């Protein structure tokens, strides 16, 4: 069990969500309200441990009186607001956004993407075979993780996790503009020449699999990655006194990757290079 620290009591805001009067603590987003009401709104760039950039726009909802749709992940519930999550207009935007994403990037390792594409009747193929794609080759410049930007939806999560929201290392940023924008190190240098400290916190937050452990990347390429067959065991990192929680993903009795529980109030899913990648000694069998 993880301890959840108590917050000071907050006032409640009352507003209308899909026709029902809803009360949420002040400061809650529309998405928070939807989730506590059991509504499933698709999200990609939203992350439980980061301030969302609201860049992907798959979570848009209709707020009465507003000229445009609002991102549920970032717009805070205001008293008296009337919000509809399932209008034709909102569904249309989600559908087209999914089409735009799926036609330009590889969503094959994005959890739930296929499900949403089906749910919203999205047809990414209708922009034609010549529709411009991101077209990036996987970058393999170190032994620990692979950057496959063909799968990147530019959610900014890795940038925020590496930068001021968690790691404070600032090894990567968005470079270029528009359709040519990419996540990049300075002058596109290899990660090993950059400020990267290989904490892997960017992999932890990446919603698409654009950033992945080399183990996972290689096993996927070899066709041996079998997620349903994996077990997950959360334990305590044994390296230093901080005592971070690590979750070991094990397939065929081998650790294949390490994540960290996001609801841990101390680490929020962050680890350092040792906890994240230093597991080989555990499975060195002579």
């Amino acid at each position, binding site marked *: 069990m993880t301890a959840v620290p108590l917050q000071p009591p907050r006032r409640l805001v009352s507003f209308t969500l899909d026709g029902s009067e809803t009360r949420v603590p002040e400061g809650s987003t529309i998405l928070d309200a939807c989730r506590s009401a059991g509504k499933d709104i698709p999200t990609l760039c939203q992350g439980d441990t980061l301030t969302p950039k609201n860049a992907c726009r798959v979570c848009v909802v209709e707020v009465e009186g507003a000229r*445009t749709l609002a991102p549920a992940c970032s717009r805070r519930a205001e008293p008296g607001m009337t919000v509809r999550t399932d209008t034709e207009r909102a569904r249309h935007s989600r559908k087209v956004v999914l089409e735009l994403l799926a036609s330009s990037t590889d969503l094959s390792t994005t959890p739930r993407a296929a499900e949403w594409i089906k749910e919203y009747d999205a047809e990414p193929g209708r922009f*034609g075979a*010549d529709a411009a794609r991101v077209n990036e080759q996987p970058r393999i410049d170190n032994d620990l993780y692979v950057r496959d930007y063909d799968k990147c939806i530019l959610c900014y999560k890795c940038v925020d996790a590496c930068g001021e929201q968690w790691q404070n290392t600032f090894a990567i940023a*968005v470079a270029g503009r*528009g359709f040519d924008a990419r996540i990049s190190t*300075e*002058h596109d240098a290899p990660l090993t020449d950059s400020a990267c400290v290989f904490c892997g916190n960017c992999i932890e937050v990446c919603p698409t699999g654009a950033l992945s452990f080399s183990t996972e990347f290689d096993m996927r390429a070899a066709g041996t990655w079998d997620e349903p067959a994996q077990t997950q065991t959360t334990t305590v990192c044994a390296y230093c006194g901080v005592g971070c929680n690590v979750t070991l993903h094990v397939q065929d009795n081998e650790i294949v990757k390490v994540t960290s529980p996001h609801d841990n109030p101390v680490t929020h899913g962050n680890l350092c290079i040792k906890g994240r990648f230093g597991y080989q000694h555990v499975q060195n069998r002579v």
Partner: protein
Amino acid sequence: MDLRYTDAAPTDTERAAVDSLLGPPPSGWEGAEERTDEDLRWARGGAAAARDRRDQLLPALHAVNDRVGWISEGALNYICRRLTVAPAEAYGVATFYAMFSVVPRPAKVLHVCTDLACAARGSGALCADLADRLGPAGTPAEGAVWQESPCLGLCERAPAALLLQTGAPPAGEESVAGAPPAADEPVAGVFRCSAVLAPATAPAVVTATRAPEAAPAEPPAGAAVPQAGDPGLVLLKRIGTVDPASLDDYRSTGGYTALRRAFALGPAGVIREVLDAGLVGRGGAAFPTGRKWQATAQQADGPHYLVCNADESEPGTFKDRVLMEGDPYALIESMTIAGYAIGAAHGYIYLRGEYPRAYERLSHALASARTRGLLGPDVLGQGYAFDIEIRRGAGAYICGEETAIFNSIEGQRGEPRSKPPFPVEKGLFGKPTAVNNVETLVNVLPILEHGAAAYAATGTETSTGTKLFCVSGQVARPGIYELPFGANLRDLLALAGPPERMRAVLLGGAAGGFVRPDELDIPLTFEGTRAAGTTLGSGVVLVLDDSVELPRILLRIAEFFRDESCGQCVPCRVGTVRQEEALHRIVDRTGAGAAADVALMREVGQTMRDASICGLGQTAWNAVESAIDRLGVYK
């Protein structure tokens, strides 16, 4: 912060360029070549100090780019050390702006406008001719490289070209704001020896590229005002008749009476006048200026900032350029009044990077206003401290969006922020900020000089005062026109000399909409254009006759938005690409052959309008949609 720099070292020139902006490095920690004993005992800087100087990033990138022509790894490294900025972030910023290059390029860069007004007046042929003479766009030859460019804001003299040349400033001319330029003489731009060619011919462009110093002088700002000298003019009254470099001329034609009146009224009184005058913003969004000021003034958090939006990159817009070049003191006086009203001590002019002459004129005007106590710690001896700084943009239309300006000034990528919170609450540096367009600000002068009632007597009930229109394209007398609100499109075109066989008028710019020649009765007011399903936008009136191939113009509009999207949100980043692709597919098709792609564009367009973060994505589809619906382009 874990900052890590590479070993790449700056050249002496790059170092000098940065040091001329930031001064010599105070210690080895900030990039001095030698570490002293003291440096080894003291670490200065750190995250807090760094945040203080991050806003010098854009000026520092300019310093190097202006001097060397591009930003090398060593130069970027040195800038990062000096400002304690992570190199990856600085690289992200440098690659955001079109005027910067992170790969080597020649010292002379020639920008040839291929945007709407220039396309309508022969930029296609000009580019073809240039390609014959200088080689294909983008390939360096003879120490120069030419490239196609979005609107340069010289639409009245289309087709236009701008030559920027890098290099050390000539001896004795270190400071741009130094010697006052004479009234309408060509001035050496901040990019050194820049030449402005408009209208441009291929031979003239080639000659100017070889010998920029011999390029012909640019016509004075007043040449853009066909009505110059007309006693009915309010905002344009000085342009073309008064020396823009002379503060005395400015004062002798009524300059600084509005500021005196402002001091007599007090800040709340100024806001009341502006509210009563019914002034509405001229930057495109048509927001009531008085309400914006009031909301900023009321914020408890401080300091408050004033930002003048002089980014003017909307294709077809050039009014702010003419105001700044022809009457720079008017902008400075009105900013002083606005700053006083909202309680700001610091104002920024965010000026688009491609306006060297406006930069020159404003720098000079600021320096002389400071000398005469009209800016500084005690403006006019009234105990009000106010000063203005110019920030040069670097080629990004999106930086005209109000929150993108903040990011740009702060040294971040010029990406818009999501609203709420609104700028009046959390703007520049997270503080309450009022952002106003140049033309909006200049309107404050007649309001205070003659009073709100007199001002509101001109125009209609909800559109008060006069409006500047940027008329370009196939008219006999392109330029800036000033008309009282209420005049209609026909009246305006009568002044400019309409073409015989008019095909369409683009109203409000690339983010506006097309209207037909049988719709010239549309009143040019905020409410009138809205009722007609279009917009005044930034005052663009681009007139096209039937020699223009509309599908190509639409393609150019789509290309513009695709190029200028910041890339932050999916509907705009990918949607603009899909729209351009669809327009390409149907460029020579009509009827059933185009129907499927038109339907596709409508679906994408609706999503861009509904779900984009900022106005760029939200309006990118407007003009094309209006061409389909009102002009029946692909029928």
